[in-house]
């Protein structure tokens, strides 16, 4: 892979990718090809047939393999020469801060809200930027939160939803091109931040109309994570219970 034309030398930079799925896969391709020097992958799933239409690092022969092994092989096959570190685990409270400390930026494309809030909190408490991404049906969002927050994910969505506040994810599908676009947007936001030109607006994409809108998100003074009097100063497991994947 030729990274000499990259506008910024990213070989000394690192990214922690939480979830190597429909968003993590395309994001990893872009980060690798941009020349990010070290990639830390976090996932404990195996490759399933239903993954293949959107999780672009995997091939038929990867079915049943650990996603991280298959993803590493795909990145190396594509010419990536940086370091690939595999963490075959879920991003959970016990290890979130340790993992967050291992990279310059976090990217989370989790399919559940507890992980999104955990990544938000771990990033803020570790003074790291985090890119949040999501794709459900024809809708996608991507958003880069600065280390200092203001705004952060909790400014926007406050806390885990009640069980019936959102439809269950089992009723929703994911359009592969929409996931691909979300992953690409996540990588773009991460690369902008790593290059010293961060962009803070939330991107919202509607796959039915191909409309890509930029939403300016404001910080919340009462935010428990980055507000004037924050109440979240550590990671407590009870804070991340509940909240099924949802659209």
């Amino acid at each position, binding site marked *: 892979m030729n990274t000499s034309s990259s506008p910024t030398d990213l070989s000394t930079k690192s990214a922690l990718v939480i979830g190597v799925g429909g968003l993590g896969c395309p994001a990893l391709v872009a980060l690798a090809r941009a020349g990010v020097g070290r990639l830390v992958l976090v996932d404990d799933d195996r490759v399933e047939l239903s993954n293949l239409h959107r999780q672009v690092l995997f091939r038929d022969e990867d079915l049943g393999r650990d996603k991280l092994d298959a993803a590493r092989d795909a990145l190396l096959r594509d010419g990536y020469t940086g370091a690939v570190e595999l963490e075959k685990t879920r991003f959970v409270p016990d290890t979130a801060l340790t993992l967050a400390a291992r990279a310059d930026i976090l990217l989370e494309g989790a399919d559940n809200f507890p992980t999104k809030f955990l990544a938000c909190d771990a990033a803020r408490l570790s003074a790291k930027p985090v890119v949040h991404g999501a794709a459900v049906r024809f809708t996608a969002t991507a958003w880069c939160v600065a280390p200092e927050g203001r705004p952060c994910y909790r400014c926007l969505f406050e806390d885990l939803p009640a069980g019936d506040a959102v439809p269950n994810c089992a009723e929703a599908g*994911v359009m592969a091109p929409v996931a691909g676009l979300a992953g690409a947007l996540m990588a773009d936001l991460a690369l902008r931040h790593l290059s010293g030109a961060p962009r803070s607006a939330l991107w919202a994409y509607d796959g039915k109309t191909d409309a890509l809108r930029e939403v300016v998100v404001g910080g919340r003074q009462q935010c428990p994570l980055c507000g004037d009097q924050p109440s979240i100063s550590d990671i407590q497991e009870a804070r991340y219970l509940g909240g099924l994947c949802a659209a």
Partner: protein
Amino acid sequence: MAVTVRIPTPLRTLTGGEESVQADGGTVRQVIEDMEAKHPGIRDRLLDDKGVRRFVNLYVGEEDIRFLDGLDTALSAGQEISIVPAIAGG
């Protein structure tokens, strides 16, 4: 006065698949009530007993109504309201 409300995909089952609808009202609250009359059920997806559901964000133009006057934010004819819900998936 009439404003345009952009409907996110998860709520389009309530608007017959329409990606945007016209609604009348001088404030965001009035617009939601008008939408409820035309598209029953949508109010409960946007509001709870405390106001705007915490997993939904309402924007007038590019401004989050929480940083304006909330549900009492005044509207001008032709303005656009966007609904941005939280989503998780990929």
